[in-house]
């Protein structure tokens, strides 16, 4: 005998077969729908998830919140080297809007506290957000007032974790960060954190175009015990190369210096460039063409 599906009134108890009651009980009224060919009996009931209740479930569920897909106002390369007394970090002061050189006075190298400086390339608004986070950390240090402030390696670890966790949420802070400073034991520290959270420390660090253009110069000329003068000359040469070859850069730079005595960011300065090459002056003279 094939068992036919019975309609049991729950009021009678489980598994009991009987007529439906005249006045339907809540068990009858709220029963799950009877099985139809299109609706299976097995499995859970159909339900809807309120998209606003699960914000991260699906990017298109809440169109007002978006994940960072592209950077808008960007900074280019950041260059940094260790030298005898500490660390130098340099960058230009351009906030480019695509190809437009839009904001020509954005500081891309900042002082974090008396032992650390931070340089950033990439999305400027994300960098400003990072500065706010670090400012809150520094205020916490100030409030504790126990003689300890955050060391460069600690800020480097903190930023790595922030960037990595944002990347895991598929909503990165679109920055390449360079953290430099002098540790409490007197040793210089220089580290780089990329927008996905990759991090490394080295004697010289360059992000963006500078990692192609300036790194060879650093590799051949940088020494951990170089004097400040040599370090500045090397930095200026590297900045010059970056300005010559990177179209999204301007001739206005800032260099931050971190030593055991403290940290400071220089005023913006210009470097002299050589543009009076014969080929530039008369570009068509040596070219093959009709005129």
């Amino acid at each position: 005998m094939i068992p036919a599906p019975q309609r049991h009134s729950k009021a009678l108890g489980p598994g009991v077969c009987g007529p439906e009651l005249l006045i339907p009980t809540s068990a009858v009224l709220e029963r799950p729908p009877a099985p139809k060919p299109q609706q299976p009996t097995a499995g859970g009931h159909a339900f809807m998830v309120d998209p606003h209740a699960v914000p991260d479930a699906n990017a298109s569920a809440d169109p007002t919140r978006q994940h960072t897909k592209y950077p808008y106002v960007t900074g280019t390369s950041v260059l940094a080297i260790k030298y005898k007394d500490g660390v130098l970090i340099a960058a230009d002061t351009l906030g480019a809007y695509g190809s437009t050189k839009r904001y020509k006075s954005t500081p891309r190298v900042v002082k974090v506290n008396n032992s650390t400086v931070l340089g950033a390339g990439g999305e400027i608004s994300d960098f400003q957000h990072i500065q706010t986070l670090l400012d809150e950390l520094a205020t916490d240090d100030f409030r504790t007032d126990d003689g300890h402030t955050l060391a460069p390696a600690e800020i480097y670890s903190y930023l790595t974790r922030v960037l990595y966790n944002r990347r895991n949420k598929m909503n990165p802070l679109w920055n390449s960060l360079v953290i430099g400073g002098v540790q409490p034991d007197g040793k210089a520290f220089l580290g780089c954190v990329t927008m996905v959270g990759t991090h490394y420390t080295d004697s010289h660090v360059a992000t963006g175009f500078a990692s192609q253009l300036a790194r060879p110069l650093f590799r051949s000329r940088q020494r951990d015990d170089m004097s400040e003068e040599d370090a500045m000359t090397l930095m200026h040469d590297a900045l010059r190369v970056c300005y010559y070859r990177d179209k999204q850069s301007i001739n206005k730079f800032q260099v931050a210096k971190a030593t055991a005595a403290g940290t400071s960011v220089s005023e913006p300065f210009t470097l002299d460039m050589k543009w009076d090459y014969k080929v530039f002056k008369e570009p068509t003279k040596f070219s093959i063409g009709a005129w």
Partner: protein
Amino acid sequence: MASTVIGLRCKDGVVLAVEKLVLSKLLVAGSNKKIYHVDKHAGIATAGLAPDGRMVVNRACEESAQYKRFYGELIPGHVLCDRVASYVHMFNLYWAFRPYGATTLLATYDKNGPALHMIDPSGTAYRYFGAAVGKGRQLARNEIEKLKLSEMTCREAVVEAAKILHRVHDDEAKPFEIEMSWVCDESGKTHERVPAELLAAACTAAKASLDEDDMDE
């Protein structure tokens, strides 16, 4: 717990001074701080139950951080005072809570100038030129009234505060510590502890002037 706290608002800043009775020889000197930093430009000295004071300070720190996150600026003194006073007052409204057993003296220096506010456990808050709370407050208030604070700089006020605290403490033979902080032009409008040498000099000057007074009598 039994200690006197005074605040002096001078022409270029605010000085907070706490006289702490050293309860035991086993205590590390300089521990058990009663003056807290709330933000770069604001500090609080509490009198009364120390843990209650710390809760109020924590709330002030949160208010200050939230204001900065929202408005991008350091919280003005009168706004911070209002927020702390409302918070303290809340504990007077509901049967499940007991009021905070601490009076706070809030010293700030913002673009409206220096300000000293006092918030007591009922949530009443006023702005003062000079304020005293704690055990020897009556004597301290009499002494403060004699000073011309609007013409004094913070440097001078540090010495005066030390004198007042020494006078207030004079009756007892128990050892005590003085903790002082200031927020003034000299400190770069930042709330910081008074430099150790200045504090030491002020204390010796205070002791010397007390001895003089004794000799006069």
